[in-house]
């Protein structure tokens, strides 16, 4: 009975599709996806080029775009910064100890690189690049792997002509054959070996995360308590707690590069403790871009107005800065995140 009722609702929604013979057995739930909706989400690209949109981009444009959008994590030459992925190099290392797996040395299909840059990069600003920009960045990644010349232009037309060095480097899972001896072996239960010697110890490497000891915890509590007292004594108006809480959420967009708070460390971007109201480029131990250093030397200060403009569009304020962030478009988001930053002053 309930199935019949569902069917009626479904029919009303599906309209012209009701002629399908198998339909009577279905639940009639959901509604037809509109072509615009499918186009918005169906952006994956297959190795044979299915899904690849028309467009093109040059190595030359790609170099600039890469520097602006990608180099902060992946390095100017796609060589990688810190623990972030290296995109170039590693040729001939796959059978070595610790192989270097990059787009050039490992990735079997160019479609994968195009698709991933288009869909998920830059980190924290996914889908902000145009189709042509993605072609250009992909072309630059190929160039940085010495796979194309500097005057190369990648397009949907020549996409499948690019040869990926490790295209034939993969086999389909063969465990059931190559490891067949792991099956049906009657495992030994008695007198299985004569002696047992230790061959490796984890304690020698000593890379396991340490727990906080009681002493450290107490010390930190004392520091926090002292800070609390100081804060209570300070006459400056504290930021609105609700705004700070909203700002904490907005800050997640920043958190891929910036840390803030007690144990904050410099990452891709500097620690932001105390940044509000301070002169530009002052975080100790951080290597700022020349552009930001210059601005600091000229006396620029992160006051409310400057921060607001910078957060809205970083490169409108610091032309050749390294912060590749698309900006916070909403006034209230910027207001909230500034309040959040202030709460660490």
């Amino acid at each position, binding site marked *: 009975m309930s199935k019949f009722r569902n069917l009626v609702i479904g029919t009303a929604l*599906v309209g012209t*599709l009701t002629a*399908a013979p*198998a339909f009577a057995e279905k639940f009639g*739930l*959901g*509604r037809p*996806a509109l072509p615009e*909706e*499918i186009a918005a*989400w*169906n952006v*994956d*690209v*297959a*190795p044979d080029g299915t899904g690849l949109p028309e467009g093109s981009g040059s190595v030359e444009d790609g170099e600039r775009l890469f520097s602006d959008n990608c180099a902060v994590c992946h390095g100017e030459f796609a060589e990688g910064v810190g*623990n972030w992925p290296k995109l170039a190099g590693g040729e001939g290392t*796959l*059978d070595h100890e610790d192989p270097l*797996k990059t787009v050039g040395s*490992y*990735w079997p*299909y160019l*479609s*994968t690189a195009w*698709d991933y840059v288009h*869909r*998920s990069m830059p*980190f*924290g600003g*996914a*889908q902000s690049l145009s189709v042509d920009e993605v072609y250009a960045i992909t072309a630059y990644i190929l160039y940085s792997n010495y796979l194309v010349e500097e005057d190369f232009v990648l397009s949907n037309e020549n996409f499948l002509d690019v040869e990926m060095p490790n295209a034939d*480097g*993969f*086999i*389909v899972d*063969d465990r059931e054959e190559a*490891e067949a001896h*792991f*099956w*049906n072996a009657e*495992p030994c239960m008695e*007198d*299985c*070996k004569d002696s*047992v010697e230790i*061959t*490796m*110890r*984890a*304690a*020698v*490497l000593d*890379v*396991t*995360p*340490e*727990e906080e000891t009681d002493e450290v915890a107490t010390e930190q509590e004392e520091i926090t308590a002292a800070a609390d007292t100081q804060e209570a004594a300070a006459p400056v108006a504290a930021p609105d707690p609700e705004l700070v809480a909203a700002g904490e959420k907005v800050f997640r967009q920043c*958190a*891929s590069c910036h840390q803030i708070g007690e144990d904050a460390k410099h990452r891709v971007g500097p620690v932001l403790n105390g940044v509000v109201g301070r002169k530009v480029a002052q975080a100790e131990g951080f290597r700022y871009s020349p552009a930001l250093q210059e601005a600091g030397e000229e006396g620029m200060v992160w006051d409310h107005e400057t921060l607001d403009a910078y957060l809205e569009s970083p490169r409108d304020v610091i032309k050749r800065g390294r912060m590749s962030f698309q900006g916070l478009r909403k006034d209230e988001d910027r207001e909230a995140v500034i309040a959040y930053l202030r709460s660490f002053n």
Partner: protein
Amino acid sequence: MTDQSQPSTTRRGFIKAGLATGGAIAAGGAANAAEPDPLITEIQPWAQGLGDGVDAVPYGLPIEYEDDVIRRNVEWLTADTISSINFTPIHALDGTITPQGCAFERHHSGAIELRKQDYRLMINGLVDRPLIFTYEDLERFPRENRVYFCECAANSGMEWAGAQLNGAQFTHGMIHNMEYSGVPLRTLLEEAGVQTEGKWIYVEGADASSNGRSIPLEKAMDDVLVAFKANGEALRKEHGYPVRLVVPGWEGNLWVKWLRRIEVTPQAIQSREETSKYTDTLADGTSRKWTWEMDAKSVITSPSPQSPITHGPGPLVITGLAWSGRGAIERVDVTIDGGKTWQTARLAQPGQDKAISRFYLDIEWDGSEMFLQSRAVDSTGYVQPTKDQLREVRGLNSIYHNNGIQTWWVNGNGEAENVEIS
């Protein structure tokens, strides 16, 4: 490697407290009390005053004394916690169901907040009717309840080259086991009508990484679930609220969180996650792809480096977990002498298909050093191999799918260390 006389774990603060009493009460069994126990003879505050009323905590958390039973991260593993992994405290849990609050997390672009009312699931590609479902729609399909383990393919991946991390949480904690409520993916695909050219599905999430993966249609029509509840309650944000994919027995990366789209395709898409990652490089430089099944594996969770023996010789419960992505756990053998002799452990319950089994071996410990290992056998006859057997086939660079036998070296004080033995 000069002084190997004692496993060295003493720098670990959380072990200290437990060990302080370890030696003293070494008599084992029923020691006679010298003096009456004040916890019994004196009236304690909790026996006199009153506790919290109901509603003191509308949604309960573990009591403060359990605040060390938490997920932990290994910071040097990844560039950033937003694209990273942490570990389930398996050394401190018992039974088989992992509480959501301490079940490991793996994100590629952070755990997003997606409201049910903003949730949409699209089915498109080679189907008769491309469809959009709301969250409410999903709740109107007949649903199932199933318990499955979810293990990251990289679990134990840091141990390929040798013993490295000192604790079951770190060596084997990229796993959880939950009871899922959800709709069979088959039901949704049939609703859309899969066309005969459709051989694969491509699934993706709503987060910035999207974490797209290709799955053969055969598996999709078999036991895959579109789940919205775990252990009876809504999925946690970090596990894909409001809807995730459950791909029983197969590597965790396929269990797409914040599931937003299922595309029926004629071919695998070969996304980043199934080419540059989650492929297993062999010694000769070629790499296996589509290594989906998680082979049979087990680990002793206690005693272990984070869970030393603190009670001295006498009755000792050795316990651990076993699981297989190819079927049910049939049997677990345990050795205390590094593999010279093995005993078959007791399974707490008969093994369930693609779910975790708990095993126990109850022994009388004589206080001498032990080399503890466990070895799982699954319903397909697969016997968990040693790490060296795996290395013989695969070399050292596979990263993923390390299901080799784990060794804990327990010394006379009950402290344990992650080691490898001959």
